[in-house]
């Protein structure tokens, strides 16, 4: 073994040992988390699929038409260049090692070509990314005290790796041009240039040695720099995507059930050790790209919330607290008081969240920002009883009246007066059971505007000959407002009560026009033992229209331009985008369905979710106004919605102003064309 081989072997060993030390340290930090993340190795096929699509195929990354392809280029380049990196590291110890020694020349040429093309492409992409960071400076890369210098350093390192790699190939080629020019399209011109300059052989040798050493050592430095920067992302993104539940397995957007009987000193989370290891891994994974924050309705309209900051704060606090906890020494009081809640993330940020899930949906590495927000909200409400004062009446009404407003349950079915709609109680007395239960929801029962949607849907059902019933005064709020506002105790009370009612009547099939009821009963009741087939009215009407069961008037009516606004709990939570649009198209033959700037999975929340319906919006622009302006900008005559909360928020925005665009529910569009 030569001296240089010995030195390199030592470098390699030190690099590997140091990396291994850091890897173990970071894994130990994850163990401070006391919360349960559930099983993350269930449904392996689904997880592999996520890894393949979101991870390797970069589907989420590519949603950004500029930065997306550039990042994907660097990422795919990394994968391809790993093969070459291994060769180089081995070369350091085994002189003359080359894949060419083991495979036939054509195969080796394919390898060479792949490395050449990739290195060239990565270099171009890195150049573009550096230009973007330094010159263009897009808004989403600013704010939240992001580590921009760190990003530039890592891009520079990648560029240096590519340049040295090409210099190694080029000088090799000068010394011994054994490969065809075609398989070394990048390094062969460089080699030609070196030769044209008449570079003496000893200088060529020196360039080769310097480039090789720089490249090989940079690989080791790069590897060991990662654990100390936001670029830990490079190592943990793929595992995080595999371990995440944000795109399944299981039902997405479901809040974990809290064990209210647990012997614990805290409900919810006030600090990182109350969270789950997965939340902390999310912190490691974030590379501060800001896609989450750029789509956050609260952030867009000037509120304090930034989902990216939530994740960065989680990582910062983990790095601050975990070393003390894993060392076994009890952290002193000051360190304990410097907790995640209040010291890093304020109440204002937490209460600004509409739970719209845009951040979670957008994240290219499947981070769950919302889970941290929800857990901190739970702590505020359940452990410290801290929430905006205007929420108190809603909590009280939910508890006493089973609705977020203090309306008497006895008036729940007032909308059905004279419509001859049976209640479950009446049917069960006669020994009958309906085809489906129509779950009306609180808005549909008490809000005068929403009641019109309720009546419209009931008329459609009757016209289609659907045998349905309602619960009437036995219905209660599904609990979503309480749960999203952190009041899990109240939520479970309401949910259990509803499950009891539904099970008493042996209800299996439910239809509802409220996406919040739809998501709760269909997805979240499962963990409390409630299993129901819940269908949203948009899907149900679409199917009835498809089957020709709804008798519509032949008259075409006037041509209309309609823009449909996607509800978060229908779209991003449940993937229902087409059904409401189908309903609009089938119901009104002469119309133009247009799309807003942000639509479908990119839709902007109306501002009512996450309990925001019952809170004041004192800071920045009102979310509903922002959204309404965007919808009105399409030139539509009418805004169509499929959620009573969207209806009230968007209906309210711009009211009384010139050119006000009215808002209707998709059911109302269909009902307006019913025969007789």
């Amino acid at each position, binding site marked *: 073994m030569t001296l240089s081989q010995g030195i390199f072997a030592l470098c390699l060993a030190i690099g590997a040992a140091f990396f291994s030390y850091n890897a173990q340290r970071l894994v130990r930090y994850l163990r401070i988390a006391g919360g349960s993340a559930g099983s993350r190795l269930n449904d392996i096929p689904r997880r592999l699929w996520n890894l393949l699509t979101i991870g390797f195929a970069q589907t989420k990354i590519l949603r950004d038409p500029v930065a997306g392809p550039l990042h994907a280029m660097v990422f795919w380049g990394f994968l391809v260049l790993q093969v070459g990196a291994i060769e180089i590291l081995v070369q350091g110890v085994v002189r003359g090692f080359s894949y060419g020694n083991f495979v036939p020349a054509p195969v080796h040429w394919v390898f060479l070509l792949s490395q050449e093309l990739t290195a060239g492409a990565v270099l171009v992409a890195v150049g573009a990314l550096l230009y973007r960071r330094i010159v263009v400076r897009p808004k989403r890369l600013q704010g939240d005290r992001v580590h921009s210098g760190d990003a530039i350093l890592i891009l520079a390192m990648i560029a240096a790796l590519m340049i040295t790699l090409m210099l190694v190939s080029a000088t090799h080629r000068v010394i011994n041009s054994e490969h065809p020019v075609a398989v070394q399209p990048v390094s062969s011109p460089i080699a030609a240039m070196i030769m044209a300059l008449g570079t003496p052989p000893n200088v060529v040798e020196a360039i080769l040695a310097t480039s090789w050493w720089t490249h090989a050592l940079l690989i080791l430095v790069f590897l060991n720099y990662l654990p100390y920067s936001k670029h830990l992302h490079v190592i943990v993104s793929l595992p995080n995507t595999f371990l995440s539940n944000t795109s399944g397995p299981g039902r997405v957007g479901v809040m974990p059930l809290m064990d209210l009987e647990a012997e614990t000193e805290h409900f919810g989370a006030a600090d990182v050790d109350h969270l789950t290891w997965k939340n902390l891994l999310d912190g490691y994974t974030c590379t501060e790209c800001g896609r989450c924050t750029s789509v956050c309705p609260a952030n867009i309209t000037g509120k304090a919330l930034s989902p990216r900051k939530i994740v960065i704060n989680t990582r910062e606090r983990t790095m601050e607290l975990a070393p003390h906890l894993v060392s076994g020494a009890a952290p002193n009081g000051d360190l304990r008081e410097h907790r995640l809640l209040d010291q890093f993330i304020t109440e204002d940020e937490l209460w600004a969240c509409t739970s719209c899930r845009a951040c979670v949906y957008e994240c290219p590495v499947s981070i769950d920002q919302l889970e941290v927000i929800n857990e901190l909200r739970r702590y505020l409400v359940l452990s410290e009883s801290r929430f905006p004062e*205007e929420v108190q*009446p809603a909590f009280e009404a939910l508890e006493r009246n089973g609705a977020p*407003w203090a309306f008497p349950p006895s008036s729940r079915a007032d909308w059905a007066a004279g419509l001859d709609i049976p209640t479950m109680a009446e049917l069960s007395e006669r020994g009958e059971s309906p085809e489906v239960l129509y779950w009306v929801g609180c808005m549909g029962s008490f*809000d005068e*505007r929403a009641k019109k949607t309720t009546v419209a849907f009931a008329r459609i059902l009757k016209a289609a000959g659907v045998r349905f019933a309602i619960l009437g005064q036995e219905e209660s709020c599904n609990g979503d407002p309480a749960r999203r506002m952190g009041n899990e105790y109240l939520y479970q009370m309401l949910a259990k009560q509803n499950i009891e009612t539904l099970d008493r009547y042996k209800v299996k099939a439910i239809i509802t026009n409220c996406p919040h009821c739809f998501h709760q009963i269909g997805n979240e009741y499962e963990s409390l033992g409630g299993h129901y087939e819940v269908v949203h009215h948009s899907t149900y009407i679409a199917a009835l229209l498809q089957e020709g069961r709804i008798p519509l008037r032949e008259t075409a009516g006037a041509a209309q331009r309609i823009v449909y606004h996607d509800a978060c709990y229908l779209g991003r939570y449940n993937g229902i985008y087409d059904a409401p649009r189908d309903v609009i198209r089938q119901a009104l033959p002469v119309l133009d369905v247009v799309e807003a700037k942000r639509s479908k999975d990119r839709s902007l929340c109306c501002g009512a979710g996450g309990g925001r319906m019952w809170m*004041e919006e004192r800071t920045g622009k009102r979310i509903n106004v922002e959204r309404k302006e965007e919808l009105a900008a399409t030139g539509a005559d009418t805004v169509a919605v499929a959620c009573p909360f969207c209806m*009230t928020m968007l209906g309210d925005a711009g009211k009384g102003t010139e050119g006000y665009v009215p808002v209707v529910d998709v059911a109302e569009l269909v009902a307006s064309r019913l025969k007789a």
Partner: protein
Amino acid sequence: MPNVLTYAEVRAGDLRKISLEAVSTARALADAYGGEVHVVLSGGPGVGSHAGTLGEHGADAVFVTEHEALAQYNPEALSALVAGRARNGYSAVLVGASARGRDLAPRVAAKLGAAILSDVTSLRREGDALVATHPVYTGKVLATLRLTSGDAAAVVSLRPGAFSATQAPRTARVEAAPPAGDPSAVRVQVKETTTADSRKLDLAEAPVIVSGGRGLKAAQNFKLVEDLAAAFGNAAVGATRAVTDDGWRPHSDQIGQTGRQVSPELYVAVGISGAIQHIAGMRASRCIVAINKDAEAPIFKVADYGIVGDVFEVVPALTAAIRELRARS
């Protein structure tokens, strides 16, 4: 213990109406027991001048305690004073369930170790027992409370406006009574009392509320609502969330689920469409009148009377009509 004790509330030098209601109620109760009505009248120097008015409403004896430190509400000194007097043997201690009385009554009850009936709307003697009505669930249910006699006087707080103040003239004995301890040596010192706007009626107390919504189109048009409220004489001005969000009115004026929840005798909704958030804050009103140009507006569903029309025509006409009516009566 046939005698009944009451506390006369004086604020800013004026005897409050609830004090006379309490004395009249005490009179009726004392008559049922065959006893006397005694009143604790305390405040800054000069407060004793109200003794005559109390006598006109049926007080037999007025115990006057004048002290600088009692000029403002002084919970510690006042509860000691009332409790001290109550220990002289009374069947009941009546206090108005005003903001002050709601604070004072439980303090007195605790000091006496006595039972308390809070915020009652009727009170009578039935044999050895006191029977009271207490509205619960925002008045949807009336609870009847029966208090059997105990060793200590029962403390009862009376809902303002639920009892009438009637004349039962007599000349009350006026006795000066020393404060219990030094009223200025208390732990809680009231430094200052600030009132939001003395001209404005508090939304929670106003018998009439005139509220405006975005149908008024601009901040300056709120004058219509203010004029209508002024015409009533006893009306407060409210607003919807949209209006307070737009800065036409202060947030403290907002009526609704996330603002003030009110239940006046009369609620006039001007240019309000009736979002659920607003309805939730005013639907308990006794009588609701809605004025809106859109006949389909949800507010008409909860209104007892509705006027479909342009607020800019209807409201001035209504204001003029009410002014005329009030001028005539």
